[in-house]
């Protein structure tokens, strides 16, 4: 199974470990995430300013993949959302299609409608499946309680995602967590928005919104949180101690990217997954034997 890996701009800049781990884990499972040599921003951050330009950038990247004849695999929820929405609208709305193709005309690219976009977690869930993943596990994470953090754009709007998972009661991330031997933590806040997209307007609101999610994880006694988006990680991971200070608590919930916990269960060393040994020891110390 071959996919073109669309990393977007944030992963190479802030979460290269996510990319490293995804490629490794994919390969073990017979999925080739091939490099996308030419790509631009997916357009999501300029949606607020001008949706036409935003959609045109998304479609530009779809065209680049079409010309390679490969479907796109994504790592960031917002890239996934913007690319999938653009592709869906190009397919279903003629007026939209003409408008965007017109904007693309100076670049020499035109949309053909020959490829699909899938988040890497969705690929693992749908195309690889739990059984095949379980069979590859050599170091079970049994004993660890892991909270899945879905974020919003991985699931919603559900109509553009062919209903691969339920928008309000999803289970794809739990399934992947379970395949590592760990126990998925259930908490009602797992599909809430972190508020990241309005961070530029002020920190207070996103911090409140993210605190609600972290409080849910803590209430249900999560040891670790797992995310499928570099932005979800900004709020759940990078902001966690600041949010804790404000809330007068210490969450102490290390966050990892989904392919990293899967990679650990597959027996890869922290380094091979773009992680620090200390980080892994802190989160899974009693469970994972140290590899020197």
């Amino acid at each position, binding site marked *: 199974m071959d996919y073109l890996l669309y990393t977007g*701009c944030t992963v190479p800049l802030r979460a290269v470990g996510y990319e490293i781990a995804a490629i490794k884990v994919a390969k073990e499972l017979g999925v080739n995430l091939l490099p996308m040599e*030419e790509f*631009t*921003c997916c357009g999501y951050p300029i949606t607020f300013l001008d*949706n*036409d330009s935003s959609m045109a950038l998304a479609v530009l990247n779809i065209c680049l993949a079409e010309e390679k004849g490969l479907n796109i695999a994504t790592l960031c929820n917002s890239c996934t959302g913007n690319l999938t929405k653009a592709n869906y609208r190009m397919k279903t709305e003629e007026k939209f299609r003409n408008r965007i193709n017109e904007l693309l005309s*100076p670049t020499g690219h035109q949309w053909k409608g020959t490829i699909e976009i899938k988040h890497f977690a969705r690929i693992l869930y749908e195309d690889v499946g739990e059984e095949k993943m379980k069979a590859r596990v050599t170091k079970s994470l049994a004993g660890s309680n892991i909270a899945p953090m879905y974020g919003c754009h991985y699931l919603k709007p559900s109509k553009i995602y062919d209903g691969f998972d339920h928008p309000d009661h999803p289970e794809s991330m739990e399934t992947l967590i379970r395949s590592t031997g760990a126990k998925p933590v259930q908490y009602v806040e797992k599909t809430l928005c972190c508020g990241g997209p309005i961070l530029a307007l002020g920190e207070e609101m*996103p911090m409140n919104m993210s605190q609600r999610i972290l409080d849910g994880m803590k209430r249900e006694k999560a040891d670790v949180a797992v995310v499928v988006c570099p932005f979800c990680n900004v709020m759940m991971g990078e902001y966690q101690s600041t949010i804790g200070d404000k809330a007068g608590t210490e969450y102490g919930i290390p966050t990892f990217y989904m392919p990293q916990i899967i990679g650990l269960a597959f027996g890869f060393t922290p380094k091979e997954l773009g992680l620090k040994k200390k980080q892994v020891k802190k989160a899974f110390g009693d469970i994972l034997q140290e590899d020197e």
Partner: protein
Amino acid sequence: MTVTDKNNVKSDEIITADQLDLNFKYEVAEEIGGEGILQCFQCGTCTATCPVRKFDPDFNVRRVIRLTLLGAKEKVLTSDFVWMCSTCYSCYELCPQNVKITDVMTALKNLAVKNGHAHPNVKVHIPILEEFGHLGEITEFENTIREKHGLHEIVQSPDKVKLIFEKRKLKLFMEGKLKDEGGE
């Protein structure tokens, strides 16, 4: 430019008929994603599910839609509220009338920009994209780490992004100098 007091759309304010622009709802419906607005029947499901409202009871998306349908153009487009939707699609998912509220909120933001009321913080990405084609510069530093891990080198080019922005006349939009011409 002029993002005024967020209390602009507060619920205790009286709006008089002479402030209304009955064409406003059609302007919104013309934007990509804005067309669903005419279907709203004001049930309030969107407001009830909104995670932003949870922490700011004044942010009432049903009311923003009602004001838009009434034609309170200035009030809506100069309010902070259009910027506060975090595009989470919770309301979109549950709306019984398929209003596609998240997209309507985006259309309102775009219209605010076109009318010269862009929130200053939403313009910052454009010069970065025009310089790199991505939301930041990938330097030697990143590419060295990439090489170490067997990842391909990323070569940035803003050329195609710039061509699209030029075709769209994005600069004029940002200055509030050009109304929508349907992508021409």
